[in-house]
């Protein structure tokens, strides 16, 4: 090579050439060209070999070795382009229509046909290539023998050959690449996809048979061994053996195709094709396994499937390629950096090859990500059936730990919440239940509550805008049945359970709050410290303060615990006042739990309320015990008197109870008599304390006896008083009746509807338009005709709910304060003037000296 180069640039050498030499060169060159042409063009005819070699020798003698090489390689390239590449591509001409097809679409062509086309094409081009390589070797040998003659020293034959073969390889792949039709990758993809599907169905049968032993075990080759062993031990040995060989035959075919493609320089394209086929298959598998059933964990089975199908396949493929590639790996010279290193792969050795491990990681990441995306998209549904769907949550947790894409979850879930939950159509109860489930579910995924913080924010903001939020929360807190109006009466939703659970936590919580944390505790805390996730908002304090505490988060919606306690007190009062049996065990329990959580002092009043009930029971018993000894001031009892046994009084310390709604009411004479007798006895026992009756409150159990039936009721005292009036007089005008009972006519008209709806009283227009006449219905026939409703059902505290509440709700208490303003707001006609109109009206009043304006505030002029 050295002298050829120097002679090439030494133009002086041209002058030394004689005519003979020139002729010799020309003749030989022509002969060499012809020989090259016929050698390469001839179909396997190597008879020109000897002539060719001597031509090469002569030309080399004149220092024209590079010319020889260049020309030969040029002809080689042309021939390959003509005989190899274009013929190769011609095989795929019929399929050019499939270029536009999506990778996921199934190509509607004969499976065997395209497979055999691919095989034939690869076969043909490899024969052509082998022939050309042979020709190249002839040239190499010719050059070699020339050099051997010229000098004594041994030339490096190997290096020369490698140089030329790799050059040839470049030629082959560059020719193929430049002429690559667009359909080819599609065909490859399709081919691998089909083969893998075939393999997967084959393995799936096996897999479902052998699910149990495959359940766990991450180690790759262990798995492989288990599988093989299982197959060998299978009862139906013949069958599984056949299946196994079928399996390996398939892998072998695929391996052959991959090898063929590799030798053409399509290493990375082949890899892309089977990788994308594997990923497609894996994706389909994940979608298939992870359906809309959230009650079982699917991650395990996906993992086992990855072990059983794609990794088995890759393992076999790599073994196959690794075995047969070894001698070619040097000659091919073309290697994608991503390509597994066959040299590092030693089949039969327990440690899986690096390539396989890399594949495993890639596949698992892909599977995790796919499953995670699926689950995140369905997170709303998953949380709706939370306790049942916890396996899905666990899966998601593992996936997220692997992929770290928590922010995806937050975004998608918030938009789902906005769209599906935080709408006017959802009841506050449902929103709260979903919120609690969200907290519980996300607590598993993210114990530090960082993402929960982000997800919970829109819910909290939304709930703050709802009026009945506090009420629902308190109901959830105190009611073991988890809310009254909600259809989902799932006891698991109740926050009461949460109160129970948190007892222990709260004790620690108390210590945390305290600044006197002892050193030991501080040390324990310090050793447990872990950094916050990167997504944590540094403004929201550290992990310790952000500890997920459902009650805390719920109370956070309300704003302050005082409001919650206030609402609780109101509801407790309502509940206690409607009790007639002094049974307050569950209330005591709830209160104790609340005390642990919210502190004893804030619930002091509630405790007094419960204590009143306990006291009432005792007093009640005492008073009844005095019946045997007649009261010192007792009056003569008449026939209508009601026994003291029947009465059960609730004695309250009104200072500690929420404001109680009391309407004046005239009770029937015997009842009134009984009550004053009761208070007399009370005063005797409890001097100097006295009783003041709230006559409109309480419950009355009564039985109405008609000609044809007896109907029991449990109603409020007002309703009882109303019906009692009909005992003496079957028909009342509304005015008279109202006067007799001592309530306003409109209240009467509203209340009496209860009895009308039960078909016990009938309403008819009276003499004057505002007056009605109420008549009692003595028998059933009339009743059913008038009111289709059955009167036999025992109704607890009939009447419209709002009016019948014994305790003014927090809302009502507020509303009373606001009545004055309300008169402005909802007067008839409604106030619809603009701010400007109001201002001009007020300034008119100022000019009339009725009002004065100071610092932007209007005052009444004195």
């Amino acid at each position: 090579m050295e002298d050829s180069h120097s002679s090439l640039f030494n133009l002086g050498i041209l002058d030394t050439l004689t005519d003979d030499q020139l002729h010799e060169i020309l003749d030989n060159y022509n002969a060499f060209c012809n020989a090259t042409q016929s050698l390469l063009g001839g179909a396997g005819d190597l008879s020109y070999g000897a002539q060719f070699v001597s031509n090469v020798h002569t030309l080399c003698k004149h220092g024209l070795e590079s010319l020889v090489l260049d020309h030969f390689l040029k002809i080689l390239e042309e021939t390959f382009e003509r005989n190899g590449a274009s013929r190769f591509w011609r095989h795929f001409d019929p399929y050019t229509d499939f270029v536009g097809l999506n990778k996921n679409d199934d190509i509607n062509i004969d499976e065997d046909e395209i497979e055999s086309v691919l095989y034939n094409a690869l076969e043909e081009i490899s024969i052509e290539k082998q022939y050309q390589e042979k020709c190249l070797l002839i040239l190499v040998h010719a050059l070699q023998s020339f050099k051997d003659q010229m000098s004594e020293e041994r030339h490096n034959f190997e290096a020369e050959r490698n140089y030329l073969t790799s050059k040839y390889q470049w030629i082959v792949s560059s020719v193929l690449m430049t002429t690559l039709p667009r359909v080819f990758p599609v065909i490859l993809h399709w081919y691998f996809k089909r083969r893998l599907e075939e393999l997967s169905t084959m393995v799936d049968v096996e897999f479902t048979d052998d699910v149990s032993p495959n359940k766990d075990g991450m180690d790759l080759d262990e798995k492989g061994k288990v599988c093989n062993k299982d197959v060998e031990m299978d009862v139906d040995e013949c069958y599984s053996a056949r299946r196994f060989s079928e399996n390996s035959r398939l892998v072998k075919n695929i391996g052959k195709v991959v090898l063929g493609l590799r030798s053409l320089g399509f290493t990375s394209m082949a890899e892309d094709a089977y990788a994308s086929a594997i990923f497609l298959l894996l994706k389909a598998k994940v979608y298939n396994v992870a359906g809309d059933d959230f009650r079982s964990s699917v991650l395990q089975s996906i993992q086992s499937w990855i072990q059983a199908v794609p990794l088995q396949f890759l393992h076999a493929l790599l073994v196959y390629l690794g075995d047969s590639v070894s001698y070619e790996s040097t000659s091919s010279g073309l290697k994608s950096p991503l390509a597994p290193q066959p040299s590092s792969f030693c089949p039969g050795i327990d440690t899986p090859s690096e390539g396989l491990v890399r594949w495993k990681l890639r596949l698992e990441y892909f599977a995790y990500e796919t499953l995670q995306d699926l689950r995140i998209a369905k997170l709303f549904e998953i949380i709706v059936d939370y306790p049942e769907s916890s396996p899905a949550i666990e899966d998601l947790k593992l996936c997220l730990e692997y992929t770290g894409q928590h922010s995806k979850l937050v975004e998608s879930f918030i938009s789902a919440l906005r769209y599906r939950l935080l709408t006017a159509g959802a009841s506050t109860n449902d929103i709260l239940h979903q919120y609690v489930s969200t907290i519980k579910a996300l607590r598993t995924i993210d114990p530090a509550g960082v993402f929960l913080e982000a997800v919970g924010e829109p819910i909290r903001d939304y709930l703050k805008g709802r009026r009945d939020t506090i009420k629902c929360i308190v109901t959830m807190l105190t009611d073991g049945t988890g809310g009254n109006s909600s259809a989902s009466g799932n006891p698991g939703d109740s926050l009461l359970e949460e109160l129970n659970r948190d007892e222990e936590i709260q004790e620690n919580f108390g210590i945390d709050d305290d600044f006197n944390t002892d050193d030991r505790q501080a040390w324990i805390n310090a050793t447990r410290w872990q950094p916050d996730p990167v997504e944590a908002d540094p403004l929201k304090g550290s992990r310790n303060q952000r500890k997920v505490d459902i009650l805390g988060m719920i109370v956070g919606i309300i704003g302050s615990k005082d409001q919650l306690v206030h609402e609780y007190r109101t509801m407790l009062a309502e509940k206690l006042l409607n009790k007639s049996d002094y049974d307050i065990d569950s209330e005591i329990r709830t209160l104790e739990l609340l005390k642990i959580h919210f502190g004893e002092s804030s619930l002091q009043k509630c405790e007094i309320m419960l204590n009143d009930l306990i006291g009432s029971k005792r007093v009640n018993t005492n008073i009844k015990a005095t019946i045997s000894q007649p009261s010192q001031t007792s009056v003569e009892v008449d026939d209508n008197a009601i026994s003291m046994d029947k009465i059960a009084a609730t004695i309250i310390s009104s200072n500690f109870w929420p404001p109680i709604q009391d309407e004046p009411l005239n009770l029937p004479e015997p009842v009134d008599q009984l009550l004053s007798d009761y208070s007399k006895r009370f005063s005797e026992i409890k001097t100097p304390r006295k009783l003041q009756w709230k006559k409109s409150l309480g419950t009355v159990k009564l039985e109405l006896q008609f000609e044809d039936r007896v109907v029991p009721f449990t109603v409020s005292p007002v309703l009882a008083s109303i019906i009692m009036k009909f005992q003496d007089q079957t028909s009342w005008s509304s005015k008279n009746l109202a006067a007799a009972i001592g309530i306003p006519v409109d209240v009467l008209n509203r209340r009496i509807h209860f009895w009308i709806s039960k078909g016990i009283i009938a309403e008819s227009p009276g003499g004057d338009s505002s007056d009605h006449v109420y008549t009692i219905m003595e028998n059933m026939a009339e009743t059913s005709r008038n009111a289709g409703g059955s009167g036999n059902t025992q109704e607890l505290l009939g009447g419209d709910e709002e009016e019948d509440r014994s305790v003014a709700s927090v809302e009502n208490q507020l509303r009373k304060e606001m009545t004055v303003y309300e008169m402005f707001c909802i007067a008839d006609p409604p106030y619809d003037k603009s701010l400007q109109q109001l201002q001009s009206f007020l300034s008119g009043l100022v000019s009339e000296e009725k009002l004065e304006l100071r610092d932007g505030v209007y005052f009444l002029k004195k």
Partner: protein
Amino acid sequence: MACCCFMDLDAQDETCGICRMAFDGCCPDCKLPGDDCPLIWGACNHAFHLHCILKWVNSQTSQAHCPMCRREWQFKG
């Protein structure tokens, strides 16, 4: 017929002259009103929480006086 009604625990609608808490509330040392924190009348007809007046009486070195009218304190009845 069974009836269930409600009553007010009614002493006087006033506050204890010592602790300024309502009579039907309780003194600052008690948690529960009513029997746990009874009222007591002096001979002068001034009422206090029993606990409050006892504390007052015990804190006086010589004969105690009613905090309201400075008459010698004696329990009524």
